[in-house]
Each structure stands twice: as C-alpha cells, then as structure tokens.
C-alpha cells in the first residue's frame, strides 16, 4: 500500500464519520461534497479513474443541486408558516 492510498483511506474514514456527525442539513450537504472529493481521490489512487469521474460528477453537482433545492423549499414553507402565525396573532 502506498502513502497516497493510506491518506485516501484515512480521509474517507474521517469524512464519512464527519458527514454523519454534522447536525445541520445545509452544513451536512457541504461536508458531503468534501467527502465526495475524498472518495474521488480514493478511487483515483486505487486505479479506478472511471469510477472516480462518476463519483466527482455525482457528489460535486448531482446531489448538491437536489439537496439545496429541497432545503430552500423547506425554508420557504417555514417562512410562510411563520407569516401566517403572525397574521393570526394580530
């Protein structure tokens, strides 16, 4: 095992744990992106560039766009609820 492979394995281990431990969804999406880069690096140093390419496009663009759109929608609905409650109170 080369040093690069060892670094990649440790990065994936730390990154994966970090994704689970982050409590807030928006930050979690960011950490997931970084974890994706760690996985990409892992696939690359283990001589699987095709898989590395798939991983980088899916984790770099594919998942974040959907997660961020969903989070924005949830936040909009929360704002609407708050506004309705304020109007009811007045």
């Amino acid at each position: 095992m080369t040093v690069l492979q060892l670094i990649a394995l440790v990065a994936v281990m730390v990154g994966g744990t970090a994704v689970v431990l982050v409590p807030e969804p928006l930050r979690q999406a960011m950490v997931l992106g970084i974890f994706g880069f760690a996985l990409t690096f892992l696939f690359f140093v283990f001589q699987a560039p095709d898989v590395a390419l798939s991983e980088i496009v899916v984790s770099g663009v594919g998942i974040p766009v959907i997660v961020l759109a969903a989070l924005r929608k949830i936040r909009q609905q929360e704002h609407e609820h708050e506004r309705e409650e304020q109007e009811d109170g007045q």
Partner: protein
Amino acid sequence: MSRPVRLGMFAVAGAGMIVVLLLGFTGLPSFGHAHELYGALVNRTEDKLRHATDIVTALNFDIRAFDTLGEEFILFASVTGVSLLLRQLRGEKEEDQEQEGIEEHAFAGASDGLKLVSLILIPVLVAEGAYLVFHGQLTPGGGFQGGVVLAAGPIAILLAGRYLAMKAVAPKVLLESSDAIGAACYALIGLAGLIFVGTYMKNMMPLGSPGHLLSAGMMPLNSTAVGLEVAGAFLLTWTEFLDQTMIGEPSG
C-alpha cells in the same frame, strides 16, 4: 419498546455482525493480491477483439451492453417518476401563467465573483462533457460521466444568477426529448446488432485502429446515446426540483 431492551437487542445484533464481518475479512485475499480470472480475461482480450483502450467502457458498452440497457431504463423510469410527482405537486396548469409574471427572476445568492467563475465554467463544462462522451472508448470516462458534466453546464447559468436564462437554454421539451431519444437510440443500436449479426447488442461496425476517435465499433455510438440520455435525465430532474423553489415565489 424501552431503551434497555432496544440496547440489548442492538448488542446481540452488533456482536453477530462483528463475528460475520471478521470471518469475512479473514477470508479476503491480502491487499493488492486479488487476481480475478474475469478481469484478467477481459484485460487480455478486449483491446484485441474490439480495439478499445479503456477497458471499463468496453465492459459497459460491449461485454455487458445488455446490463447497461437495463441501467438506462432504470434512470429513465426514475426520472419520469420524479417529474410526474413534482409536476403533480406544483399543479402544471398554473405554471404558464406564473412564468409570464417573473421576467427578472434571478438567483439572489449570486455574487459578482460567483457570476464570473460560473461564466468561465460554462464553456469548460460543455467542452469537458463532450470530450468525455466522445472519448469513452479511449480514455476514462464515457456516456454517463460526460452526460452529467454536460448537464452541469446549464447549472452554471443558474449560479450566474439567471434561472430563466437557464430554462431558455435548456427548456423541458428539449430535455425530455434528449432523455427519451437517448434511451431509444441505445435500445435501437442493440436491435441493429440483432438484425445485422444475429445477436442483440453484438458489435456490427468496423473496429477502426486502436486509439482513434472512431474506433472500437459501436462503443462511440452507445456512449453518445447514453450521454444524450443522462444529460437530459439529470438536467430534467434538477429543473423539476428547482422549479419547486425558484418559480412562483419571491426571490431571496
């Protein structure tokens, strides 16, 4: 169920899991010493039989082309499902009226720096995506990877703050057609194999010389069909998700 009972159940299940995993790990070949017969055979034969230099693409589009057909339609079906569900949620009929009233609609989070970087990224993404799709049989990459990179091009327009410009560049009709035509082309290429050489998905085109753009028989065609489908599928999914939040609401 009370907490001690749950913890107890977890302890039993966890211990069992550890035993099974340890048994499995001890049976693995040592690091870097796995020599599978299948991999060795493919590595030895595929460059000579099909003149492809990227064996992973050769696996996807030649040896296991039929599996890829299944994967194509998994993606196609799931994207169709997402579109149906989200359009139902939004109420498709109201959309046309809403869209006329929001000409200046923009992604408010876009700073000048982000706009500049996105504008530079657009041509790079399109070129990279096309390169990956067309050079699948030569270098790492192929229809799937290239397709997603191509689909990311219009997303850069969104990051530059112009969601409606993105929708003008890639309207839903275009994305739907790209998704459907790509999937259909892949199935039809397989059918051509059935008609001309008697086996579904079997290569029926000249092989060319290894390392050239037009080589490896049907692989460039398959890769293009997959690229078309994946680009349409991903961008359509993103557009449906973004429509949920970017259309019909005040920006911010």
